[in-house]
């Protein structure tokens, strides 16, 4: 290799050899550098308004620097990283995870994948004014953290909510049949264990076949046949994470769960028709998306 080749190689490799400089106090850790994780991070970065360090956990173990004060984790794999106990952790897009570690000195804040529960029940009542008995089917342990608050908020809207734990996927059809006479509708949280393609099909066919409205928390489930979903957008989750990170940077003491501010309502007209529901105009105007 001649000297000209060496010089050219050195020139081309120079940018990669520059050492990291200007470290930030906030580190963003993504479970994957693509898909919803990247999109939510983009919303976070815009709302946060300043540069943050970014690490993709699929490319290696996250390594907070000595200047890092807060880790914002996007996705379950990122949330369960082995972070120093003194760091604050804000975690989102982790629908099945609720971090509990009393030994940590830093604050641990979960960004929920749901809007505040009064927003949920307010809309369910508008969609189905006669709703009195609602069954909530769930599988992920994370739901226990919400359960009592969800039931209490339902009661405030005159809805008797009961939570039904689905132990295994095989048990779901029997549980649905068993509870048929005791519900006006059923609801599912953003539950990755429960909401597999086959279970969504079971829930949809049960709903459509028995005229029982099926309410969910995600747009995609509504597209697959749920009557409606009251959820939050990934953009809103990113913004909520940014607010939390900014609050922590300002030294605020935050609650362990934060709910994004805005609501994303999605309707499925075919599903409503099958359940004998007619969406009121107010709800139709409020919907972000209506599947035909």
């Amino acid at each position: 290799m001649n000297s000209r080749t060496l010089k050219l190689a050195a020139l081309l490799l120079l940018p990669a050899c520059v050492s990291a400089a200007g470290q930030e106090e906030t580190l963003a850790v993504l479970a994957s550098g693509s898909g919803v994780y990247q999109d939510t991070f983009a919303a976070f970065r815009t709302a946060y308004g300043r540069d943050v360090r970014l690490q993709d956990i699929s490319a290696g173990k996250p390594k907070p620097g000595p200047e890092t004060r807060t880790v914002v984790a996007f996705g379950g794999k990122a949330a369960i990283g082995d972070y120093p106990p003194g760091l604050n952790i804000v975690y989102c897009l982790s629908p099945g995870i609720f971090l509990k570690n009393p030994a940590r000195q830093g604050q641990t804040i979960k960004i929920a994948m749901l809007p505040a529960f009064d927003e949920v029940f307010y809309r369910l009542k508008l969609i189905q004014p006669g709703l009195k008995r609602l069954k909530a089917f769930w599988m992920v342990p994370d739901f226990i953290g919400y359960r009592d608050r969800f039931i209490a908020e339902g009661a405030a809207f005159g809805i008797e909510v009961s939570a039904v734990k689905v132990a295994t996927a095989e048990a779901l059809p029997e549980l649905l049949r068993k509870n048929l006479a005791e519900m006006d509708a059923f609801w599912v949280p953003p539950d990755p264990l429960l909401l597999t393609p086959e279970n969504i099909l079971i829930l949809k066919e049960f709903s459509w076949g028995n005229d029982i409205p099926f309410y969910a928390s995600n747009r995609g489930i509504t597209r697959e046949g749920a009557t409606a979903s009251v959820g939050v957008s990934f953009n809103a989750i990113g913004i909520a994470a940014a607010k939390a990170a900014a609050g922590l940077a300002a030294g605020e003491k935050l609650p362990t769960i934060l709910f994004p501010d805005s609501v994303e309502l999605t309707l499925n007209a075919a599903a409503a028709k099958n359940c004998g529901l007619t969406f009121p105009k107010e709800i139709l105007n409020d919907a972000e998306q209506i599947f035909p």
Partner: protein
Amino acid sequence: MGARLYAAEGASDEAAFFSLERSTLEDILNTKTSVSTLNAVPLRETPGLVTLITREEIQSSGARNLIDVLNAVPELEFGADGWGNVGLAVRGNWANEGKVLLLWDGQVYNEPLYTNIQFDRFPVDQIEQIEVIKGPGSVIYGGYAELAVINIKTRSPENLNGSEAYAAYGQGRAKARAYAGYSFGKVLDGGTEVSAKAFWGEVQRSDRRYTDLNGASYNMNGASYMRPKSLNLYAEKKGLSLRFILDDYFLREADGYGDVLSSGTERLSFNMTSAEAKYNWQVSETLRLEPRVNYSGGKPWEENNQYDAYDKYTRRYTGALTAFYEPGPKTCFVAGGEYYRDSVRIGTEGNPYYLYADGSNDARYNNLAFFGQGTFDLFALKLTAGGRYDKHSGQDASFVPRLAVTRLWDRFSLKAIYSKSFREPSIENMRVNPGIKPEKTTSAEFEAGYKAYESLFLSGNVFQTEITDPILYYSDPLLETYNNYDRTGTTGFGLGAKFKNKACHAELNYVYYAARGNRVDSYSVPGHGSSLLGVPKHKLTFNASIPSGSGLSVNPSAIYVSRRYGYAAPGGIKAFNDMVIANVNLQLKDRPVKHLTLNLGVRDIFKSGYSYLQAYTGGHAPLPAPSRELFAKASYEF
């Protein structure tokens, strides 16, 4: 602790759950690709004109093989080469032999002797995603990526999350194909990812009659079968990934260089083994290093019969290091170096005619390359600038730069790309012509896209490709050689419309190209200066998927090619009329059993009589494609 346990077990559940949220047109447009830059960039901002083909699209279309899939990209057109192989033309330019790079799970599938790709060998049912750069890719990928890059990723362990078994059968005038495969993938406790994919097939190249330029013919029905077999193993833990591929493929043919072989069919095999170790090393929050070592070996074009004894072992050892440096969210540098060493040795059955310099039985070459690229936001534009330098021991050095500007507004996107690229002469090119030079291409591309509605995306592009010193095969009865010729190229434009609403999708794409400055007689069509041999000037492709309830979808597709010109007699070029190849596939999912997918389709419904034309003066007559075929496939995931 409970939360941690769940996360380890439920990582794939989370990914599947979020995948439900990403099936709108906007999601597809926002899909990130690293094929043009190595770092992930959204499709509308990546510095290349990239077509993304998803598993869903491949499966719903009822594609039987990679040729069916790639034919739906109008910039690509297949043509006949010799010895039973077909090759690609890209935007009208014949691009066989080392001008298109094909990566299968990151492994180079251009065999090193002539740098051809055997497009019939790939198990299409293993594919998760295909990215096609329809323009130069040498800045990142070097000397096989002069005119296009086809980057194919098979299903990941996370995506498989269990097993899939599939089997297919096709019936034309006789049995056209039968193949089967099994794939397994899992994310184990502790985060280790493993996958294993096995495939076996027996396929007939065509059920029609091949007639050579002198009028001799043979019936390919029953005398042109291929047998691909492969095993693909993968494991990854904590950033260290290992891959091993064993690929055994052979075909039988009787059309050789073009004249029908007088004593029946002969067998050619293309065995290949590759192994790779790669490590993702996150050095700091801003710096990531990716060292890689790779081995690839095989015996491409192996034959031993009364016509020829071609028996050569090839080996390639590659070592590479790539650095990714991201000092801020809007700035990224990628730089690296790559060294490979090629060797070839004539086996015991080798023909002395194929000896290397000074009568040697073997030859060795090496190549050292450095590349660098920066991406910056500049005045609301995303600017990508980079270059690659290659120094090969057997040929002149090459330096290729690229400058690209992209911009994405809410609904509107723009790309302008200027790039140079090169084709590295292959081992056998250098054997027959030690003075051969790399072929060079200069390309300018411009693309605009507009999301007219939430479910409709429109795009248009113009391009110009200028190739200097094109390398071309030349043969007379006593001599085969490769020479550099003067120059050739094309100019043209493309239009596209993509519609997606719920599970319904449709796509219509059109490309026009015309010869520009062609001074290579072997590509010319006398009296039609704007045409090039073997390729249509207009190509229109359509595909759609229409759900019709209860898990059933109807998936029509069609390809229109305008008039083409090809040899039909010695020295006699004939016009082949325009034609439409129409297909339909019915797909039934999760019925009558969950996780079962059934496909039943008809390929080439109207028996178009399509043949692959040779795009240069090489002595090969039109090679008949398979005729109408009833195709059925079943797959089950568990």
